[in-house]
């Protein structure tokens, strides 16, 4: 019944990829790892031979769980147009769950926004889904993601406050680690970030 190896531990992270959102993105990825799951993102492979849409569809198919942040509703300063990628990928995930095989129907998602009930003004079709507000704060996003993953996991897990404390320790160490790699934090790829996080968490747990 399992779609692909690791399907039950894969979490698709669908969120903005800009620098402004980076602290929240890093916190989500960290919380997913800390809970024993594997974050997956469209950023994970820089293979230009694979179309972006194909890549997203493949990752969605390989993930039982997903985190969708639809908080980015502002118009672009340059184009004066909104970004529709996050709601679109949420729709793809819900579609895969509705029309997919038995394994795909086991999919679970959490939808994040800055404020509770704000989504009803711009995406009322998802009323009734599991929507959580993070107020644009790192600590809040960690609490939401940790508590949601705990509700899906049979494993024991430390509390949300411990997740937050761990994340802040990691953040304190990250500039020094970047210095050792002679790179800026903003230059870290998704693969770099996940490799550093897993090594850091492995040592933290020892």
């Amino acid at each position: 019944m399992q779609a692909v190896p690791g399907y039950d531990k894969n979490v698709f992270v669908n969120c903005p990829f800009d620098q402004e959102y980076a602290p929240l993105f890093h916190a989500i990825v960290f919380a997913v790892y800390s809970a024993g799951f594997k974050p997956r993102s469209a950023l994970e492979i820089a293979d230009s031979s694979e179309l972006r849409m194909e890549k997203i569809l493949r990752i969605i198919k390989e993930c039982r769980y997903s985190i969708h942040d639809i908080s980015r509703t502002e118009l672009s300063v340059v184009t004066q147009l909104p970004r529709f990628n996050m709601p679109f990928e949420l729709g793809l995930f819900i579609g895969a769950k509705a029309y997919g095989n038995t394994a795909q129907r086991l999919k679970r998602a959490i939808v994040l926004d800055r404020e509770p009930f704000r989504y009803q003004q711009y995406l009322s079709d998802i009323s009734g889904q599991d929507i959580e507000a993070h107020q644009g704060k790192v600590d809040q996003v960690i609490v939401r993601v940790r508590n949601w993953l705990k509700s899906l996991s049979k494993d024991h897990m430390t509390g949300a406050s411990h997740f937050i404390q761990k994340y802040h320790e990691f953040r304190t160490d990250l500039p020094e680690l970047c210095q050792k790699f002679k790179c800026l934090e903003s230059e870290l790829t998704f693969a770099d970030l996940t490799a550093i996080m897993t090594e850091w968490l492995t040592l933290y747990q020892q």
Partner: protein
Amino acid sequence: MAVKSKPMVGYGNHKGKSRKSAKVNGLHPVLKVKLAKAVGKPSFPIKKIREAVRAVFAAKQQVVSPK
């Protein structure tokens, strides 16, 4: 008559050790999570990343306990 050896007691992989020694970093073994692997190929060798993380942890421990 053969002497029966005492059964090993302890916690999971820490059988035979005391509860105290089984706890590392203040985290009970039961609360340790089986971590997933990193995603994709990082820009730096994983060995170098491991060494760097170890160095940062070692430096922190020196600050905490200067002995």
